[in-house]
């Protein structure tokens, strides 16, 4: 699969130089199939979620707590899904447990060269909801539900949620 992916990348590079090219012309048909590249640079505001991403730079993981019903969110949201009221920020603990996990051997184009990688839903003590993150380090055979994990932060910040990741805590 990866070799097919490399060939595809080479073809794209060629198309970018010369414009649209014939991708294939199935034998015995008159169907013309061309390659047609397309890319976008979005101007994306994190808006009401901004504080979470800015806090990653300070090595802090921020969640939200409902001002009214006190429901605590492990992934921030501006308004409570239970009662609809506004939430406020609170600092999440940097240690938690694996609530569920997987190891991905295939994926989206953007992350294909990072495979295999572990995904984990992390639970924090006394927090009502979870946080999705990468679990770095352990091989598939060594990960289990209930495993203690702690947060670490990338040094070269990209202002993405993946600036934080988890590693085994013991």
């Amino acid at each position, binding site marked *: 699969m990866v070799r097919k992916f490399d060939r595809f990348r080479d073809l794209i590079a060629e198309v970018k130089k010369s414009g649209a090219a014939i991708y294939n012309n199935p034998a015995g048909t008159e169907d013309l199939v061309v390659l047609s590249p397309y890319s976008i640079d979005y101007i994306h505001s994190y808006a009401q979620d901004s504080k979470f991403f800015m806090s990653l730079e300070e090595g802090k993981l921020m969640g939200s707590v409902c001002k009214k019903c006190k429901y605590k969110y*492990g992934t921030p949201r501006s308004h409570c*899904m239970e009662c609809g009221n506004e939430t406020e920020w609170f600092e999440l603990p940097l240690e938690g447990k694996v609530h*569920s996990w*997987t*190891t991905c051997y295939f994926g989206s*184009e953007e992350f*294909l060269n990072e495979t295999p990688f572990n995904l984990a839903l992390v639970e924090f003590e006394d927090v009502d909801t*979870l946080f999705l993150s990468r679990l770095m380090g352990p091989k598939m055979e060594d990960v289990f539900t209930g495993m203690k994990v702690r947060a670490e932060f990338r040094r070269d910040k990209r202002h993405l949620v993946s600036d934080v990741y988890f590693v085994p805590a013991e």
Partner: protein
Amino acid sequence: MAKQRNVYVISGGVTKFAKAHPDMDFRLMVKKAFDYAMNDVPSLEAKDIGSSRISYFSDHFTRQIMAASMVQDTLGLNPKDSRRVEWGGATGGQCIQAGWEAIASGRNDICLVAGFETMSRVETWKGNEFIALASDTNFDYPVGGFYTGYYALMVQRHIYEYIRKTKFAEIKDEKEAQKLATREAMRIMSMVSVKNHMNAMYNPYSQRPMKLTVDDVLKSDMVAYPLNRHNICTMSDGAAVMILASEDVARQYTEKPVLIKGVGCGTDTMRLADRPYGAVPLFDWERKKDYANLRYPGVHSFRSGRIAAIEAYKHAGIKNPNKELSFIELHDAFTSSEIQTYEDLGLCKYGEGYDFVERGSPFLANIDYGLELQNKGAMPVNPSGGLIACGHPIGATGVMQGVFALWQLQGRIKKHFGDDSLQIKNAKRGLIHSHAGTGCAVTVSILEAV
């Protein structure tokens, strides 16, 4: 449910689902499915159609905004009322219910429901990226956005709740117990894969018919543990259409209209991480004490599916789905979600989905799967082969289920498939189930032969 008019399905059509249809773009695919449906009700003319509801999931795949408008145009239905319907993987099921509403409300007597997707327009890894954009792009996608990964997270917890904590409760070594539980689940999920791929052998519209053994499935490439290749649907090109009609006119066009007896829809949070841990919404036949120690839905079950089923059963007057339904076509994007869905639909209690498979309940009575099964045919699930083996051209998928259910209930599988192996004998009532995101929306519709 407030007062409404009865709505019937009078005809349907599907293209063959395929990895790619370089000879047809989305307009031509829908046109072919439409012509097939029109030929099945020869007295119906296009001018009799009052409105259309057209569904496709992704503008990224089409790279053509307002593609539904071009379908309307190609079918020659301008200048009539039409709109696009979209809600992720449940797009097709939502489109059927939108068509139902157009007629139930009294607005139209005949409504065309059409769905399509053209996923061959990018390579698989790019398609995975487009699909993963249907997860929170601030918090989920950048972590490694991949739907098979999300479903793996969900089934891992399902296995933990329902196999680790029961069958392997005695084992103290946590890692070892979880490994054994997952191995057990993988064996049972593989049985679902064998079933759906085998059923598809008799469905000429299917993309991936295969005779497999449990061992073949277990040996296929690991994609996201514990989901390997044969437990996951493929990307497809395809289109499907249904023609819906009011009680007043349905019998003018067919002797065998099929009644849409009940509709239901439920929703849940976009992010898996946000799912609450509360009480199970119960069917009439369940009791609170059945789930005394269960925190629900968490990431292990689909609350949206449960809510959709409760609404649809109530609407259709169903008190015992296992007795009152003849078959089910459900959204098996993964064999794991087929098992999770048995429980949401109340075919068994939460936690009993794996046993439901082992007993043989969702298999067809007359088909040889090469497996020892005790209770074969008790509740046939995905007789068509489901998404796993038919393919999953997202916007068409839910409508495809509706077309297959129509043909089952008309007793016309042989006419359309050229083979009656998949015909459920005396099929009276069928359930179709369409599912979006990680369970962010689910529709359930119940069709009945009249």
